């Protein structure tokens, strides 16, 4: 530990644009890791900062950034309306300042900011889940991973080429046809599509993009087709091409828990699949969560100091924050945890979940 760290420093927590933490991130992740390229929306200096969805919660010690947490507001489009969540990522503490709980400081700050922003929950993808479960995070939301056999031959073989910057408008229109997704602007899509290490391909018909699919992002998702949209047979053709490229390296399709001709076709031919939690989440704005549950169930749901009070004919039922989160973002949309909350509210389990999901490009 440095001499400066040995003394009690003056600590200050603030919200900053990404450029303020570049040196800290280099010290933590190494110069070779291109976080700005991988997560461009966290470093969006092109928009006015007040309106930018991405920022960092930064802890300074004597004016120097020593810990930081990426913060990205996103609107999740679901079959039942839009759900605002805040994605947290790139949690970093300078090596010389570890062991003091500083990461916990920035996480708590980011969580408070998410609550103030009206987000129902914070969502993250940890390298080490145990650190976050101690802070109240739990598995949440649901994704499907469908294994793509190395001999997959579905769909239409159309001319393909790598995606180009000028495709963004057409690809965004295809993406926006998904009933379950994260809302993106064209500018955001353009920045995400330029992530390093990504293989995004477009299928063309009459010279126009009718489908696209992407594999890889930075050093992650190399075996996963994590983003796809468009005419289903054309998507299946692109996915089959990805699947057949390397039989020694099985590939997977990331999909929402919402029926789509692409996922149904893969399951119809016997592709094995697993469901798993999308990430770890923690309830943020209790009032927003209560409004969501009220909207889904038609029940009167009011937030109070410790949870929610639900008015039922037989008397009020109380839900704590964990139960509220389970109602909206259960780790399995037909699981026991969801069923238990649904039983307490005397509603069918399928009346509760948001079925929220994000494709791989949206994660941070």
């Amino acid at each position, binding site marked *: 530990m440095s001499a400066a760290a040995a003394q009690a420093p003056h600590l200050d927590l603030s919200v900053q644009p990404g450029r303020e933490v570049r040196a800290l991130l280099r010290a933590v992740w190494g110069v070779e890791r291109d976080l700005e390229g991988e997560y461009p929306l966290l470093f969006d200096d092109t928009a006015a900062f007040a309106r930018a969805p991405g920022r960092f919660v930064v802890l300074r010690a004597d004016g120097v950034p020593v810990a930081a947490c990426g913060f990205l507001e996103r609107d999740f489009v679901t079959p039942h309306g839009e759900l605002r969540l805040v994605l947290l990522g790139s949690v970093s503490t300078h090596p010389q300042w570890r062991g003091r709980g500083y990461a916990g400081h920035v996480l708590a700050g980011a969580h408070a900011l998410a609550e103030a922003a009206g987000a129902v929950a914070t969502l993250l993808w940890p390298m080490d889940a145990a650190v976050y479960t101690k802070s109240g995070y739990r598995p949440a939301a649901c994704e499907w991973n469908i294994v793509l056999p190395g001999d997959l*031959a579905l769909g239409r073989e159309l001319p393909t080429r790598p995606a180009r910057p000028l495709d963004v408008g057409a690809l965004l229109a295809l993406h926006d046809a998904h009933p379950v997704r994260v809302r993106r602007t064209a500018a955001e899509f353009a920045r995400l599509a330029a992530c390093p290490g990504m293989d995004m391909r477009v299928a063309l018909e009459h010279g126009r993009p009718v489908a696209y699919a992407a594999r890889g992002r930075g050093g992650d998702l190399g075996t996963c087709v994590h983003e796809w949209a468009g005419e289903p047979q054309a998507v299946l053709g692109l996915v089959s091409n990805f699947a057949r490229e390397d039989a020694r390296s099985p590939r997977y399709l990331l999909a929402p828990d919402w029926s789509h001709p692409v996922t*149904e076709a893969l399951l119809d031919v*016997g592709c094995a*699949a697993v469901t798993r939690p999308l990430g770890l989440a923690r309830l943020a704005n209790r009032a927003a969560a209560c409004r969501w549950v009220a909207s889904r169930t038609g029940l009167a749901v009011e937030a109070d100091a410790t949870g929610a009070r639900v008015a039922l004919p037989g008397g009020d039922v109380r839900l704590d924050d964990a139960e509220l989160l389970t109602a909206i973002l259960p780790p399995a949309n037909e699981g026991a945890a969801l069923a238990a909350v649904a039983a307490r509210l005397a509603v069918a389990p399928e009346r509760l979940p948001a079925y929220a999901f994000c494709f791989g490009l949206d994660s941070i």
Partner: protein
Amino acid sequence: MNSLPIDSGRVGATPSAGGGSGGSTSGASSGGAVFQALLDRLAQSAQRLEASEGAVTDADSLADAVEDARSALTDALSLKDQLLEAYRQRRAQGA
């Protein structure tokens, strides 16, 4: 398109009688891929545990390391069960 969640009974789906449009997959090859995927995840879990070694410098980080190890072990045990199940399916399919 069905405006519904995916039928949860399709987890670990086996080939349908008619197959899909032009499909040429088999349950055996899919099962093999799942088997490999689970092996990969077990390896990643072990790597994560290894990575936490040497990071213990004080009592707090020791507690964290113990918790990490417990979590990794829980993951490994869960993965083990999935792995055995995938192995049984693979054997049953004659792969």
